[in-house]
């Protein structure tokens, strides 16, 4: 199987470099005054890094199994339900 596959080592090192760069950027960005955008920038960088790990290191990119996709998508969906429904309560208590 690996005889025909192209060596993934180059892409592994590229992802590694991107992850280190992301860590450096998120560290530096935290010391710059961006107001409410500080949290947004930090979470966008973190999510980009998490996606890089999941897609390239955990090999989600190129995975063809439908069952696997179902598990990954429903995990994200249920995490979203957990956060969204909790915030629908806690973040709106000051409304009335």
């Amino acid at each position, binding site marked *: 199987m*690996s005889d025909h596959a192209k060596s993934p080592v180059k892409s*592994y090192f590229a992802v590694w470099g991107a*992850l280190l760069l992301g860590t450096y950027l998120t560290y530096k960005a935290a010391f710059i*005054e961006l107001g409410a955008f500080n949290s947004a920038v930090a979470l966008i960088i973190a999510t980009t890094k998490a996606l890089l790990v999941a897609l390239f*290191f*955990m090999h989600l990119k190129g995975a063809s199994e439908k069952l696997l996709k179902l598990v990954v998508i429903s995990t994200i969906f249920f995490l979203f339900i*957990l956060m969204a429904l*909790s915030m629908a309560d806690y973040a709106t208590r000051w409304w009335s």
Partner: protein
Amino acid sequence: MLDSQAAVPTSSHEDIHSPALLHHFATEEQQRNASSFGMWIFLATEVMFFGGLFCSYLIYRLWYFGDFGAASKSIDATLGATNTAVLICSSLTVVLAIWGAQIANRKLMIGSLILTMLFGLAFLGIKGKEYKDKFEEHHVPGASFSFEKVPIPGHPDQYANPRHAQIFFALYFIMTGLHALHMVVGLGIFTWLLTMAWKGRFTPEYHTPLEVGGLYWHFVDIVWIYLFPLLYLIDRHP
């Protein structure tokens, strides 16, 4: 496995397949997919497990915004950043170990596994230094907790409420502690993987334990990728 004595080969092709293929799987690919699928299901439960903690962090951060900022500022962000880099390097060595197994490069596989474990131990060492600082500063929630007269970032005239800061530190210790526990479990798994690799159990055709153990390791890395900015880097700007 159990009925290995009863399994009498009925046709010639049945006894030429890989010895790693269990009899209830049709092909090695099916067996490999089933194994990693099991790990993905486990990781889904782990996401919900950590998700509850991230959710409580989010709620308290919104409630005690400035107090969380003041408490976060007391943690050494450089140690946290170093640990992030260490974990990212360990994730690279995990994929290199699997690549080593795929191209039958024993040196690459075993060297990468040892490096992964060294990075993991370095992470725990740095974490220990961080915990030691917190103990000495009396920032551990409990009877001797003290967080007096610490200004809120952006409001130098206001002090953080120690009770609210204590909630930040409780979340900090639970979340990083639970993550560190996962690292310890990961080191146990990798000790076993290293033993198997040393004995020559992994071949280009069969190295599923490496892939499944790697999935777990990468997941623990992803949890840290979120913990780092949320616990170490909030309200750092002057």
